């Protein structure tokens, strides 16, 4: 990593758009470094929620009145924005879900039911979040299929050579993340997708940690499924996207039954609606989907390249500074990383570090980050994780380092 990239972001102006950042926590200015868990929301997103409920709340798609029409238009506008955002071929390939967890569960249940047979193999990686492990365990248990795992190297990168030995004609599906929530590792997903396709396996990418940070082009990647969570992209909680190739999703059975997903219902036979509605049973999360559109516009207004460059600069700066502190071990030093800095301090429990930083108004995450198998592989009980976003500054990194310095001096 180099510090060469200078960004031209107007961070002060960006910060002004995030009301939550302007507060004292435990008597000090809030430093929010828990962005990998969820990032903060700009005014445009917050105002959009208020606007929807104040001015045009209505159930969508079926209503013929003016409010329903307006709500439907706004809801579908987000689908159009999402399609552009990830360069999907069609809006029919964009399914609104609760978030990445539901997206993966949907594919596991629906694709699993239709295509996974006894003895088939599913490959995940050792870097996965529990939400990209457990749904596949369900499928494997249900279909008597076998779960295989790509090894993680000591530096936090995936072992592609070992992946090549795992993949075979038995492999039906490969599910990996674009970037690791625990270590920040950016995975070589294009290579993984190509290798999987060469063996006729489909590929699901968990993009939770990429949505707000990395360029995503599902057609160039040629992935079969790609999952995003709105709340990690400056949008509201409770919504997200499942992208799936149209020809594949047309073959998949519905995930849930109810309104919206049907064409006609009788007690003898029900026919299903077309994509994307086939997978959107029930009244959707209208308000949050509309506000999610504002979050996508926010990201577009800054540009992913500028965001990534800014976060990279913070990551490089924080990594360099933290390494000057005694007893600190950086965990995960992949060559390509998003703005996630995981570390431990010898002899000090991550929980204590997190509590002590919080006492100085600094929000980080501690623990296993929902990646218990990865923690076991790395031989740690948990880590402290600082994760950066577009509104963070070097001055905040300095406050964070100063806080750590005090902790080490006090406890060592």
């Amino acid at each position, binding site marked *: 990593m180099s510090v060469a990239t200078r960004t031209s972001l107007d961070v002060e102006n960006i910060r002004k758009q995030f009301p939550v950042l302007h507060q004292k926590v435990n*008597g000090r200015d809030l430093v929010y470094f828990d962005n990998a868990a969820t990032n903060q929301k700009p005014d445009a997103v917050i105002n959009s929620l208020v606007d929807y409920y104040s001015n045009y709340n209505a159930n969508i798609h079926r209503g013929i009145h003016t409010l329903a029409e307006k709500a439907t238009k706004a809801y579908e506008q987000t689908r159009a924005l999402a399609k552009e955002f990830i360069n999907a071929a069609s809006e029919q390939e964009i399914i609104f879900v609760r978030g990445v967890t539901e997206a993966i569960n949907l594919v596991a249940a629906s694709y699993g039911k239709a295509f996974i047979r006894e003895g088939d193999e599913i490959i995940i990686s050792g870097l996965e979040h529990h939400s990209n492990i457990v749904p596949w365990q369900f499928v494997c248990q249900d279909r008597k299929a076998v779960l295989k795992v790509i090894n993680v190297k000591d530096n936090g990168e995936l072992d592609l050579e070992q992946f090549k030995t795992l993949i075979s004609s038995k492999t039906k599906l490969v599910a990996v993340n674009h970037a690791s929530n625990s270590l920040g590792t950016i995975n070589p997903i294009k290579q993984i997708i190509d290798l999987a396709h060469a063996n006729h396996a489909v590929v699901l990418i968990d993009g939770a940690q990429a949505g707000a940070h990395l360029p995503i082009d599902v057609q160039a990647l040629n992935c079969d499924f790609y999952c995003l969570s709105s709340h990690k992209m400056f949008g509201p909680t409770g919504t997200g996207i499942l992208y799936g190739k149209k020809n594949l999703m047309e073959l998949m059975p519905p995930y849930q039954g109810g309104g919206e997903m049907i064409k006609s219902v009788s007690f003898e036979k029900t026919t299903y609606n077309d994509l994307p509605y086939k997978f959107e049973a029930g009244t959707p999360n209208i308000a949050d989907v509309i506000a999610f559109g504002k979050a996508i516009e926010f990201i577009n207004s800054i540009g992913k390249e500028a965001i990534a460059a800014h976060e990279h600069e913070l990551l490089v700066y924080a990594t360099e500074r933290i390494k000057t502190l005694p007893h600190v071990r950086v965990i995960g030093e992949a060559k390509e990383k998003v703005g996630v800095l995981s570390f431990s301090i010898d002899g000090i429990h991550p*929980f204590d570090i997190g509590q002590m930083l919080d006492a100085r108004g600094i929000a980080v995450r*501690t623990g296993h980050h929902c990646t218990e198998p990865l923690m076991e592989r790395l031989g740690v009980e948990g880590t402290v994780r600082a994760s950066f976003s577009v509104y963070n500054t070097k001055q905040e990194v300095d406050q964070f380092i100063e806080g750590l310095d005090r902790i080490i001096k006090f406890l060592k």
Partner: protein
Amino acid sequence: MSKSITDIQQEIIQEFSLLDGDMEMTVFYIMELGQKLPAMNEANKTEDNVVKGCQSKVWLAAKLENDNVYFEADSNTAITKGLVSLLVRIFNGQSPEAILNADLSFMQKIGMERFIGTQRSNGFAAMIKQMKLYALAFKTKQDVKS
């Protein structure tokens, strides 16, 4: 006659009031208290004596001596250990009945709810419950004898 649970709680409230509500000072003070907690007998740090939280772990053992309860405790995290030390200080040498009936109002007064709030992480609430369970068991034994 040893001090009552209420008296000790009053002392703790006094001590913490000197910190003036400064969260960082409070955290450092709690950790200092933890460092002063008498070392737990290693033989008692068994799996049976673990009160598990999501992130931190507490070991708790108890014995009855001359009709009073004595606790031994330890934790793998410094802050939890400090919080535990407060409870040990309050409960040690008290009768099972007094422990069972104790109203731990000091926690709210010293802003400890801030830490109880993360009970899922530190297992602190589970620990209070476990101390009261020990007291209940000792009391039942005493009742049977008399």
